[in-house]
C-alpha cells in the first residue's frame, strides 16, 4: 500500500482564510468585462446605468478593500479530499470553521449566521460554515470557498419533474422561476442548474455548477446547447439588471447533471446574484 500523504488541517484552515479574502473583494476574472459588454446591449438608461454601477462597485471594492456586497454571505466550502491523503493535526471541521471565523473578523466582513433557525441568535463568527467534504482519487486536497448571500438563496427552486417531461417544459419552468424571482436575487444572474440525481444531489449540483468557470462551456455539446437556449430565454423575459427592465437578466447558465432513478427527474435552481464570489485552490 502506498504511504499516505500527510496534510495538516491547519494548512487547510489557512487556505480557507485566504480564499474568503480573495472571494470577498474581487469577482472571478471576466465578470466585469461581461457586465461592460452587456451594458452595450441595453437600450434604457436605467439598465445601462445599473450595469455601469456594478462595474464601478467592483472597482471600488478592489480599491477600497470594501466587501463587494454588505451581505458577505454564508461560506459554503467544498473540500475534495484525495483518498491517499492523511489529514492530521485535529478536526477538519474545526480547522475550516477557524479559517472562516478568522477571515470574517480580520477583513471586517458581516457575520450573518444564526446558530438556531428558530431562536435566531447571531453566532457572531459567521460559523459554522456549510462544509461539503468528498473523498476523491489522488493525494491532493481541493478547496473551493463559495460565498452566497441570503437574498439570492431565498430564491432557490426544486421541482421533481415527470421523467417523460420534455426539455421545453424544463426551460419553461426555469423561465417562470426567474420571472417569479424577478428583482429579488439581484440579476444579472449566474444560474446554476442541477439536473438529475436525488433531490438533495440536484440542489448541491446547482451550487457546484456556478463554480465551473466564467466563460467556460459544458463539456457535453447537448448540455452546452441547452445552457445557451436557457440563457437566451431568460434574457428575453424583460426582468433586466436588478429587475429594472432590460435584456440582461442572466449573465451565464451552468448545468451539472447526474444519473437518476427511472421515476425521477429533479431540476434544482441556484440563482446566484451578480456578485459572483468564489475562489479555489489545490493543496
Amino acid at each position, binding site marked *: 500500500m502506498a504511504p499516505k500523504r500527510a496534510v495538516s488541517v491547519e494548512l487547510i484552515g489557512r487556505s480557507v482564510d485566504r480564499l474568503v479574502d480573495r472571494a470577498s473583494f474581487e469577482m472571478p476574472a471576466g465578470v466585469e468585462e461581461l457586465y461592460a459588454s452587456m451594458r452595450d446591449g441595453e*437600450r434604457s*438608461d*436605467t439598465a445601462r*446605468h*445599473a450595469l455601469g*454601477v*456594478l462595474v*464601478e*462597485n467592483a472597482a*471600488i*471594492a478592489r480599491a*477600497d*478593500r*470594501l*466587501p*463587494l*456586497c*454588505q*451581505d*458577505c454571505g454564508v461560506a459554503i466550502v467544498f473540500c475534495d479530499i484525495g483518498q491517499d491523503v492523511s489529514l492530521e493535526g485535529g478536526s477538519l471541521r474545526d480547522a475550516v470553521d477557524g479559517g472562516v471565523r478568522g477571515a470574517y473578523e480580520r477583513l*471586517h*466582513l*458581516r*457575520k*450573518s449566521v444564526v446558530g438556531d433557525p428558530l431562536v*435566531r441568535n*447571531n453566532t*457572531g463568527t459567521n460559523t459554522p460554515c456549510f462544509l461539503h467534504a468528498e473523498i476523491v482519487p489522488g493525494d491532493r486536497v481541493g478547496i473551493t470557498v463559495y460565498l452566497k*448571500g*441570503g*437574498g439570492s438563496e*431565498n430564491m432557490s427552486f426544486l421541482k421533481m419533474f415527470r421523467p417523460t417531461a420534455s426539455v421545453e417544459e424544463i426551460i419553461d419552468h426555469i423561465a417562470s422561476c426567474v*420571472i417569479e424571482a*424577478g*428583482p*429579488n436575487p*439581484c440579476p444579472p444572474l449566474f444560474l446554476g442548474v442541477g439536473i438529475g440525481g436525488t433531490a438533495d444531489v440536484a440542489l448541491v449540483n446547482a451550487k457546484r455548477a456556478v463554480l465551473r468557470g466564467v466563460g467556460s462551456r459544458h463539456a457535453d455539446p447537448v448540455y452546452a446547447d441547452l445552457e445557451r437556449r436557457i440563457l437566451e430565454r431568460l*434574457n*428575453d*423575459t*424583460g*426582468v*433586466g439588471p*436588478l*429587475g*429594472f*427592465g*432590460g*435584456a440582461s437578466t442572466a449573465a451565464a447558465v451552468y448545468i451539472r447533471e447526474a444519473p437518476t432513478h427511472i421515476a425521477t427527474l429533479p431540476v434544482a435552481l441556484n440563482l446566484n*446574484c*451578480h*456578485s459572483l464570489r468564489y475562489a479555489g485552490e489545490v493543496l
Partner: protein
Amino acid sequence: MNWIHLSAPLDDEALGPLRAGDAVLFAGVLYVARDRAHERMRRMLENGEALPFDPRGQVVYFMGPSPAPPGRVIGSAGPTTAGRMDPFAGMMCRAGVRGFIGKGKRSVEARAAMREHGAVYFSSFGGAGAYLSRRVVSSEVLAFEELGPEAVYRLEVAEFPAIVINDIYGGDLYEDALSKRR
C-alpha cells in the same frame, strides 16, 4: 440619467411628482432598519412607546451594513430584500414614514398600504454595497445595538441613488419591465 434630487426627511409635496422608473438622489437622513428591528418596533408601537426616531416624513432604508473598517464611517451598505418587511409596511406608514428604500418586490398588501398613505418605495442598487458606501457621510447606531448588523442606524447621505419602483399612483416599475419585454 435624469436625476431628481430629494431631501430626507421628505416634504409633503416631494413625492407627488415621482413616477415609477424615475431616478432620484437622496440627501439628508435615512433611518436603517431590517427584520428584527422592525419586529421590535412593532412591539414598541403596540405598547404605546415612542420609536427610536420620529417617523413622520422619514425615509427608512432596509439595510444591514458590513462592519466599518478603521477610518471609514461604514462598511458596504447596499439594500436588502424589502419583501421581508412587507408585514410591517402598514404599521410604518401609519406611524408617518413616507419613503422606503430596499430592493425586490413588495406584496399586494404592502403596496396598497403605501399607496393609501402616499408613500413611495424605491430600490437602490442591490449588491452594490461598496459603491453605496461612498454615498454615506455619517453613521451612528440609534437603537438595538445588540442586534449588530440588524440594529437601527441613523445615516447622513449625499447623492444616494435609488429608482422609484412604486409611486403613489399605483405605478410599478417591476411590472412595467415584464410587460415591456426588453
